[in-house]
């Protein structure tokens, strides 16, 4: 379970203080598919970075499956990221000159999984996203949709509890985008918790729950169906 209690995040730039998140609180249960939406500057990326242990809150408390972020050092955070989290980015973030296999294997290099067990895990993850025939192709040579599938395979290879997807369809055509969302939906049905940051209503529809942010605060938190059917207007 993910438990966020009154977390705030502020940045200081040349003396100017920006409050990106203001005392945000919510709970996400294991196995949920949550979309985080909001206009630019609403704080959704900041929230995703904190939830994925890549950034720390300025105040408040964050517990990830019982582990409190504020009690952990950077190495412990890295270990949790490696074991419990998977990442899918808008810009794919693949090693372009490495093969699909090497890209998917990447998280395992930093894990305690034995090298002898890696091959089957990598091959299974690549198979799950339907790219077996591209296993040894350079990642840079793939299409956008294929690249994002490689990124999903990389996010899956460690069998994490939670997958964070930051605008995963942002750089894809609609067909490829739908394909990627279908994969994420299936993963959720298989028990994975998915936290999706998006600005596209269509993409958010694949989630069950929607948290909408505005100016660093939660504007609305409810089911996607309810919020989108009421055509909820921002305050």
């Amino acid at each position, binding site marked *: 379970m993910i438990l966020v209690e009154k977390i705030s995040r502020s940045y200081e730039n040349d003396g100017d203080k920006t409050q990106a998140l203001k005392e945000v609180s919510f709970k996400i249960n294991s196995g949920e598919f949550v979309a985080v939406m909001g206009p630019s500057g609403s704080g959704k990326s900041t929230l995703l970075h904190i939830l994925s242990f890549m950034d720390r809150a300025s105040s408040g408390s964050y517990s990830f499956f019982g582990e409190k972020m504020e009690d952990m050092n950077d190495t412990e955070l890295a270990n949790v990221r490696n074991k419990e989290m998977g990442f899918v*980015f808008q810009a794919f973030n693949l090693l372009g000159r*490495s093969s699909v296999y090497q890209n998917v294997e990447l*998280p395992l290099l*930093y894990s305690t999984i034995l090298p002898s067990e890696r091959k089957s895990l990598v091959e299974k993850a690549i198979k799950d996203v339907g790219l077996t025939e591209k296993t040894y192709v350079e990642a840079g040579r793939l299409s956008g949709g294929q690249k994002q599938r490689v990124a999903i395979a990389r996010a899956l290879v460690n069998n994490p509890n939670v997958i964070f997807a930051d605008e995963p369809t942002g750089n894809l055509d609609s067909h490829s985008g739908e394909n990627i969302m279908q994969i994420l939906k299936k993963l959720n049905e298989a028990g994975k918790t998915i936290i999706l940051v998006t600005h596209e209503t269509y993409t958010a529809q694949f989630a069950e729950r929607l948290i909408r942010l505005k100016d660093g605060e939660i504007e609305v938190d409810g089911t996607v169906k309810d919020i989108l059917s009421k055509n909820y207007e921002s305050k």
Partner: protein
Amino acid sequence: MKVNDSLKTALAGLRHAKTRAMLTMLGIVIGIASVILLMSIGTSAQNLIISQVQNIGSNLLFVIPGATQGSKFSPPASAFGIIIKTLKERDIEFFRKDPSIDKAAGEVHGQARAVYSNNDISVTYTGATGEYFDIINLEAEKGRLLNSKDDKSMEKVVVLGSEVAKKLFGEKEAIGKNLRLKNNSFKVIGVMEKKGMSAFGADLDNNIFIPMSVAQKQMLGIDYYSAAFIQGNNSYSIDFIKSRMTSILRQNHSITNPDKDDFNVRTQEDALAVLGSITSVLKIFLASIAAISLVVGGIGIMNIMLVSVIERTREIGLRKAVGATNADIMQQFLTEAIILTSIGGLVGIIGGAGFSFLIYLGISKFAVADWTFALPLSSILLALGVSTTIGLVFGIYPARQASRKNPVEALRYE
């Protein structure tokens, strides 16, 4: 991250930027090759000098007239051209009578023009007796050496060093021919085998030898020696023989205060120690110059690694996002730097050794036949150690820069 994975990752990183990696390595290759080359040549030169001194004779001691200033290895006054007249025949006679000494002989030197036919060269002539050749282990390649009869009867005969014979007579037979030395005619009775340098650094092959009596009385007009050579009796230790010689000289020269000795007794070991220390210092000096290029190479590595860290900011962000710790990132970049410098070091060692071998082929064929090829294991280990250390030292800063990157900012880097 496991070492094996770290190596694979680092090698992949380098493979993706081959040209840059090779250019970066070049500085280390040149630096290490220079160190190896200079140390190899220095060791070959040291070996040559020491072997030539050792060839001169075993159980050898020598007396140099004049006091030394400073340490016992400081040169005596005679070495600076000051004429010291204290070493006389009487000293040599006393040496001969001592049971710890088998043979003793004086030595004098002079410079003259040696003329044969149209060939006119400047030579150093040495006044010598038969015993002199026995002590410093010189042999004639052709003809015979000087003997006591030549000395007693003041025969105008000469034994030529191998180089002098070549310069004066070329391929012709020298034995039996007459050459002119200071307007005196000397008959050539022998030609020496090739010998190289003496313990004093004199080039024996460019020397000629005439009877001591002729040199002292007719050529130089003196009654003293410029040096004396002694072959000790093997039943006695070198230190004992040295102390006996010192006692004899002090007694003959009426010296009661050891600080006022007007002579120096030195052993072959002393000479080897001096030569060894001189050549060692020279070797270190040469290697130090080469080491400067290694530092330059190291700075090159650091520079390129810093550029690489900036170029790969997003990669660093990604690795951190998927679980790499700061230590993992640091390990990856340090491994890359160490691989670069280690491979550079290996290539440098092979290159330096190859160059040194070519130089050996050239010198042994055209200059010094006794020149040997030397590649001390210590220099190879040193070069490998230094190159790896350079990778470590100059790789630390860029690796730290990489490891400290914030994953969020790194992933956003354009």
